[in-house]
């Protein structure tokens, strides 16, 4: 059984030879551990593709999450110069904007006036929304446009021509053996990223009707993106829904502003191509596992344990584990980042003992592997599934 088959079996609740292992890695972890310049990993389709493959092979992961869009092949021609200061690189673009690139964290784009853009709620016209890409090379934009030359997105082309390049790059090199997952952002996540979190959350109470019109428009774009990814041949599509836990909103607001739109996204993608769609949702979600299930998702990723979240794995397995596959629950900070390799092994063993029986479990850190997590700790996950995760 190869990695692709192993992950597919786990997602279908069939018993593979062993529990698969795959983690989402913080971009900073790639920057620190791949031997490639962080500017290139962030901005170049090929460099990011190489980084994904390098760490998948090094850590013996069964899958890869492609969590950046393809990039404009001309990206480097828009650079005026790069300045280095206190270990950070600062790109000065030809349009006057800058991108600050820390060596261990996501880059941030600043406009000419030195501010990061977010849209005032009053200025948003829902019908102009389609898809907000939080990881766009030029930062958050409204209405959407494609790159630094400020070329407006053309209506007949929903996404730029390079949008799916990273997926295609990865599939060409690993697609037969490794499970390749793509990522779309939940309409709710896009909405909060567009407005900034404070404004976005207040808008839920100030003008719920307009918020819903925005979410409806963003749902259409999300479906189009997910369909495009599925059409390229990914093995699963992940909905990134990081702001839908109790750290942000109530179960009632989840029911009103998240559930119906993620349900439409899942139905919309799967109505065209029968690809598994599952959900990444962080933090305090113990009170809403059944609501997440009601979106029609096939699995839930992260399941942060206390103290970062409030999900007890045994409880989650009991409540949703027979219908949905579960991925995660290994504490990314107190175990994966700050623990010893032995502690990682013991915690992974605990997760496997609780969640592996009956299938439907993928061993993973809850949330991303932090940038400075020791590679020796990450390697222990593969050792754990070989030692404690077999179904023979």
């Amino acid at each position, binding site marked *: 059984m190869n990695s692709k088959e192993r992950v597919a079996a786990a997602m279908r609740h069939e018993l593979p030879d062993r529990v698969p292992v795959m983690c989402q890695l913080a971009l*900073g972890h790639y920057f620190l551990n791949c031997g490639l310049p962080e500017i290139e990993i962030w901005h170049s389709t090929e460099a990011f593709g190489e980084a994904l493959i390098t760490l998948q092979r090094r850590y013996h992961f069964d899958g890869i999450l492609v969590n950046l869009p393809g990039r404009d092949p001309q990206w480097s021609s828009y650079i005026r110069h790069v300045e280095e200061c206190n270990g950070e690189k600062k790109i000065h673009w030809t349009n006057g904007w800058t991108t600050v690139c*820390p060596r*261990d*964290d996501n880059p*941030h784009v600043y406009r000419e006036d030195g501010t*990061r853009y977010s849209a005032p709620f009053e200025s948003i016209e829902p019908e102009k929304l389609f898809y907000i890409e939080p990881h766009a090379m030029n930062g958050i934009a409204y209405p959407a446009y494609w790159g630094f030359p400020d070329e407006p997105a053309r209506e007949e082309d929903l996404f730029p021509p390079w949008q799916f390049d990273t997926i295609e790059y990865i599939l060409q090199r690993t697609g037969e053996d490794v499970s390749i997952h793509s990522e779309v952002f939940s309409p709710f996540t896009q909405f909060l990223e567009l407005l900034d*979190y*404070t404004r976005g*959350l*207040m808008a*839920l*109470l*100030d003008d719920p009707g307009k918020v819903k019109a925005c979410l409806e428009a963003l749902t259409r774009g999300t479906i189009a993106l997910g369909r495009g990814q599925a059409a390229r041949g990914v093995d699963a599509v992940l909905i990134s829904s990081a702001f839908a836990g*109790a*750290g*942000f*909103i*109530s179960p009632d*607001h989840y029911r009103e502003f998240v559930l119906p739109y993620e349900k439409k996204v899942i139905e919309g993608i799967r109505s065209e191509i029968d690809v598994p769609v599952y959900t990444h949702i962080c*933090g305090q979600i113990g*009170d809403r596992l059944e609501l997440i299930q009601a979106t029609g998702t096939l699995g839930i990723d992260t399941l942060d344990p206390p*103290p*970062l979240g409030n999900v007890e794995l045994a409880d989650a397995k009991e409540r949703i584990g027979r219908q949905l596959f579960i991925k995660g629950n290994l504490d*990314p*900070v*107190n175990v994966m*980042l700050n623990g010893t390799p032995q502690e990682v092994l013991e915690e992974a063993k605990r997760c496997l003992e609780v969640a592996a029986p009956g299938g439907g479990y993928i061993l993973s850190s809850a949330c991303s592997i*932090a*940038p*400075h997590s020791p590679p020796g700790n990450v390697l222990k996950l593969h050792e754990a599934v070989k030692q404690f995760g077999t179904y023979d």
Partner: protein
Amino acid sequence: MQLEEISRSLVRGDPGAVEKLTRQALDEGFPPRVILEEGLIAGMSVVGMKFRNNEMYFPEVLVSARAMKAGMAPLEPILKACGIEPMGRCVLGTVKGDIHDIGKNLVGIMFKGTGFEVIDLGVNVTLDKFIAAIRTHRPDILGMSALLTTTMVQMKVNMEGFRSAGLLDGMKVMVGGAPVTLKFAEEIGAHAYGKDAAEAAGKAAELMKDLKTAF
């Protein structure tokens, strides 16, 4: 009128009503300190309790904070003119390299709701900027926030910077943020750690008692 009406409107997140009722209370001769404590702070105290009990969430807290701000508009100049001091002064900021502000903003809301004066330095605050703000504002409490594992280590650097600059006498340092733990707070020598914004405000009030006892 009853000052509970102000509290109830604040919990409901109605800025227009809170401002109108606060002005009415002033017109009716209620002492400004009483309006502050029994109207606005009492309302925010309910908000904090409901937030901790998962009866209110982030959006509801934000609109309550907006309502409190509306009530403070007519009240604040009078409080200042009367020489009524806040419970304490707090400088807040998200540490260098970190641009996340929502948790820090919530802490600021809860601190204000407890009666603190809050000076918010924003995000990506360098050690030099913290030090300059401490020298300018002489806060009782300095709060540092970090959402990322990569930036929480900056809290340790800052603590060492404050110590070297001799700024820890008479000032308490609090830390918080998703990856921050009590153990980490103790390791870097912070005086308190708040698991969430409501807990942080409660601990800040306790720290103020320590500071007042020390002097």
